């Protein structure tokens, strides 16, 4: 479990990170470690700080206090671009692709962190490293869509394009913020399985926020429960009981009803 591809020790070290917005505390000081090749699910009611935490893990936002150490380096002091691209990649609930571009270009956008500006420009005319995109789309199961315009794809297919983009980025950590919130249950299972397989095959660390308990139980090794921006529990998946989960959601008078029944 501990040996990573490139280094030793935990991939993530969160040292008392916190974040406040004008009228809410998004995340109270939080400290924890994530080991290499762990598959961590973050659960909790809406507004519990899941997205804030994931964005800080991805270096998209910086904590007000404390620091995020990734692979032994301080996230805040890391210049973006190549170095960061090799460490963290992210997929979102709304896929966040550029609808007008072809599937191929959306996938190759995962290489932008590695390419020079000049090469990025040339690639729009004569696609660079096309084999990487083909291979990633094959793994994601939509190789045949490579030259289609992305706006024509269904939600599930677009999520696969986002996954292929992450594959060509080839980061050590995969962060997924509600990756299946807008998909039906069958597609959700397929997509989460795909992300899990990708993480497992190439020894990547996976951190995802999810609402579906069956998916968490089936595909993750560790569960972190958040409530009102504080840590409610942090347990191996085998020790997470229905009671613990019910308590996490119910104590808050949670009304969004997104907690699926355990299977």
């Amino acid at each position, binding site marked *: 479990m501990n040996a990573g591809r490139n280094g030793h020790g935990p991939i993530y070290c969160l040292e008392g990170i916190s974040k406040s917005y004008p009228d809410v505390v998004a995340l109270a000081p939080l400290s924890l470690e994530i080991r290499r090749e762990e598959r961590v699910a973050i659960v909790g009611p809406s507004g519990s700080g899941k997205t804030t935490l994931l964005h800080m893990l991805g270096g998209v936002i910086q904590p007000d206090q404390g620091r995020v150490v990734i692979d032994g380096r301080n996230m805040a002091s890391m210049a973006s671009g190549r170095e960061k691209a090799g460490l963290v990649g992210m997929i979102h609930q709304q896929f966040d692709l550029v609808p007008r571009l072809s599937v191929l270009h959306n996938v190759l956008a995962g290489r*932008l962190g590695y390419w020079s500006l000049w090469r990025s420009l040339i690639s729009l005319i004569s696609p660079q490293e096309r084999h990487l995109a083909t291979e990633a789309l094959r793994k994601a199961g939509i190789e045949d869509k490579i030259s289609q315009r992305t706006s024509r794809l269904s939600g599930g297919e677009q999520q696969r394009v986002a996954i292929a983009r992450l594959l060509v980025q080839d980061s050590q950590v995969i962060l997924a913020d509600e990756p299946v919130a807008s998909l039906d249950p069958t597609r959700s299972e397929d997509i989460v399985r795909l992300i899990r397989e990708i993480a497992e095959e190439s020894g990547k660390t996976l951190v995802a926020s999810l609402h579906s308990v069956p998916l968490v139980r089936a595909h993750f090794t560790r569960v972190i429960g958040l409530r009102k921006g504080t840590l409610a529990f942090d347990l191996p998946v085998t020790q997470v009981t229905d009671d613990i989960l019910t308590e996490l959601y119910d104590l808050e008078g949670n009304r969004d009803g997104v907690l699926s029944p355990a299977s």
Partner: protein
Amino acid sequence: MAFSLRLLESRRFITLVLLGALAWSAYNINWSEPIVHSGGGSSLVTLVKSLFTPELSPSFLKLALEATWVTIAYAVAGISIAVPIGLSLGLVASGVLTKPGAQRRVVMVATRLFLAVIRSIHELVWALLFVAALGLSPMAGILALGITYGGILGRIYADIINDVPDAPLKALRSSGASEWKVLLYGRLPLALSDMLSYTFYRFECAVRAAAVLGFVGLGGLGLEIQLSLDDLFFDEVWTLLYFLVGIIILVDLWSSALRKRLVS
């Protein structure tokens, strides 16, 4: 500076200014004189009659066709200058390539002001200025169009580039893309169809403006319309106007065909 710009663009402020202008102009009309010129009736009848009897002799059609060609050439050349001006200044004015801070605000406001200045002078006035400087050369008309329309396009391009949805851009940044790459792979593809349709609309306006530039003596439909009007040949005027309408319709068809291909 940013605050004062926002005030100038606020709806309430603009409404007040426009209402004030309306009241002021109503106050200044000399209501004791008839508003419609009484002797104009007969020439109005001639004008309307000739609407149905445009001049269609081959020699005049040839002349109208040549004038149309000149007008289109002016419009195309003018837009060809306006688009690069608009793109480059619009990019600077949008501020998407510079880091947030006081320096960016200064550059953005200065560029927006510059764009406002060059477009607030009408193309006809620019044309008169350039005719004074360059003589009656086509370059005067083309520059006049290019500069005014560059100012208009720059302003609109900046707004469109600023207003694209943010989420895809964040995703690109999170995969390590610099702002230039975000521009190439996110902002421009997301903004393209809006920019294109606005450019085509402006091309339409440029055709009309190019026709009017003829009145300054720069040739094309405007010049011919003026010559025919001077001789009171209304049927010729109508022929020329029909050609003008024809170009506008053609441009419209072309732009919607192109947009359809881009969107689907």
